[in-house]
């Protein structure tokens, strides 16, 4: 099978997954014990007005029709109006997506690169103290919940030492000439530091352990012995051959990290009042703003599914041995 049909199949799978998730969302919100619209509508409305409002939200039609409408709207990226913000959901999410991105992209980058390097180092110093230390550290990073770490960091650096702000992306009173200006400003950097530091350890743990494990397995391969027999220096064997072969699993397990980053992201955004997608998901659920919740959830799911797909494509280009089956 050629690479093209492999990619096409993966694409199809991604679309199906997206479809299933969308349907699950629809079902979940329709089986909610309380009529979601009632939450937003004041109980003092007359039955006639109430009926009109329901019609406005399209909630008076039979389920199948609602489903069809729902799908059509979803395709057009129309998720309705937020009950509380009185704005189209898509606009709110678009705004917040950038904020989440400027937080998560650096965090993921740092976590992955630091993690890979540490894992490689642990494998290089196999059996000695650095290796053991890295193993313990990585486990601790996975075990301390990121919200606990965030609170500790906030306590030390924001409350006690007063070095860093205690939340938000920029201080409410600041103004900037453009978005780009905003994101490179010192103020922004001060605000983004703690959230990133809170989430990186959790994201880093898996790459560290994976890199270490993969390296150790690779180092046992016959071609590594052959490289030594060829008279290559230990360093060259390690970097050119061992590391090179160990990077591939790191790519294929990206989806796992992506999944974890969603979790970390929601927690960290909530604690630091970071105006991103994670925090809006939680807030909208707590307030009963269902259109916004749906939109946020679907956006996150779409990102995950798309991320999985991109990883599959990248992997197919990187490994010369891939068999498409």
């Amino acid at each position, binding site marked *: 099978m050629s690479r093209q049909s492999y990619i096409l199949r993966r694409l199809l799978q991604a679309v199906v997954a997206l479809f299933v998730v969308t349907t699950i969302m629809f079902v979940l919100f329709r089986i909610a014990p309380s009529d979601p619209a009632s939450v937003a509508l004041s109980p003092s409305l007359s039955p006639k007005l109430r009926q009109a409002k329901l019609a406005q939200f399209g909630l008076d039609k039979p389920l199948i029709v609602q489903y069809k409408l729902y799908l059509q709207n979803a395709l057009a990226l129309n998720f309705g109006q937020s009950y509380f913000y009185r704005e189209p959901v898509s606009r709110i999410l678009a705004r917040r997506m950038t904020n989440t991105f400027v937080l998560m992209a650096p965090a993921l980058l740092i976590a992955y690169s630091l993690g890979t390097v540490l894992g490689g180092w642990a494998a290089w110093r196999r059996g000695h103290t650095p290796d053991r230390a890295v193993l313990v550290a990585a486990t601790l990073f996975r075990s301390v919940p990121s919200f606990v770490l965030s609170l500790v960091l906030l306590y030390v650096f924001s409350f006690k030492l007063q070095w860093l702000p205690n939340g938000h992306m920029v201080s409410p009173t600041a103004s900037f000439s453009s978005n780009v200006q905003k994101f490179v400003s010192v103020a922004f950097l001060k605000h983004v530091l703690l959230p990133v530091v809170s989430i990186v350890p959790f994201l880093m743990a898996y790459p560290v352990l994976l890199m270490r494990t993969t390296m150790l397995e690779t180092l046992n*391969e016959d*071609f590594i012995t*052959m490289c030594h027999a060829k*008279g*290559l*220096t230990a360093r060259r064997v390690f970097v050119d*051959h061992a590391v*090179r072969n160990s990077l591939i699993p790191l790519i294929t397990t990206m989806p796992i990290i992506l999944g974890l980053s969603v979790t970390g992201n929601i927690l960290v955004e909530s604690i630091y009042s970071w105006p991103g997608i994670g925090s809006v998901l939680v807030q909208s659920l707590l307030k009963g703003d269902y259109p916004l919740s749906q939109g946020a959830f679907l956006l996150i799911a779409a990102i995950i599914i798309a991320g999985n797909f991109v990883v599959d494509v990248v992997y197919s280009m990187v490994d010369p*041995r891939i068999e498409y089956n």
Partner: protein
Amino acid sequence: MLEVRDLRTRYTLGEDEELDAVDGVSFEIGEGTVFGLVGESGCGKSTVAKSIIRTLSRNGSVVDGEIRFKGTDLLGASPAELRRIRWEEIALISQSAMNSLDPVYTAGEQIREAIRAHRDVDAEWMDARVQELFEVVGIDPGRAEDYPHQFSGGMKQRIMIAMSLVLDPDLIIADEPTTALDVVNQDTILHYLERLQEETGASILLITHDMGVVAEICDRVGVMYGGHLVEEGPTLDVFTDPIHPYTVGLKNSFPSLRGAADDLITIPGSPPDLRQIGSQCRFASRCPFAVERCHREEPSLAAYGPEHSAACFRIDELGEEIARRGAERRTWYDDAVDEVGEQP
């Protein structure tokens, strides 16, 4: 060319368990000679090879003995010196050609890498050399930039041979070069090895469990069992007039060297557990000629012909009788003592 004296290599296995996979092995390989090291799996022959170029695994180490290559002490050589000697002077053809090439680099790249590690030459020279070598081993030079997985097993083995020749080494260690191949490819590979040896004048240390392979191209042969060298000499002598009971048994178990197949024997029993062996002849428990002394002392190599030696206490007494009686089935199945495995 290569002198191995009293080599002892030890493996540590987990909880304080050790075994000496090679226990006092000595032999010499002259210039331009093909020396075969033959024995059952687990007898230590591969370990000998790895000890020479020091590619033992993490839990293995040479604990005694001397290895001299063209006069240089290999065991005491510095890491830098060792790296220089590797490939430039001693090359390795490994038994698992399937896995001896890095899957993410092309064949040509890996050969060039070997050159770059030792010589400072320009790209043209390297490319020319790669093409030349591919032709020598009979693979289309246009495929030099293909990846290992695109070659068949036999071709990969030939690439290994090509790669081993790239710096004109004086000694090639071929560790079971044909084991993983089918019979047709085996023949081809041996054929190449022989031709190359004649053309380049390199010495070859050929390690195998297949007596037939040894008979084909080796000038001299050493028979190993349980970490010991039990017989050594010119191939013809060892094969036509084996002295040691084990060699005699081996000879009589290979169809290519005997007539009718129903005269074949198998040596009952199995190799000893080297973790618990004491000082004794390693073959004693399976040997039909063993006496009490064989279980108490280790015999050493003694000469019985101009260049032919064997390690056995009973040779002086029995001499040619060993070869004669060893050819009969009855010797092995009625007289075998101690740990007899399965009766046929």
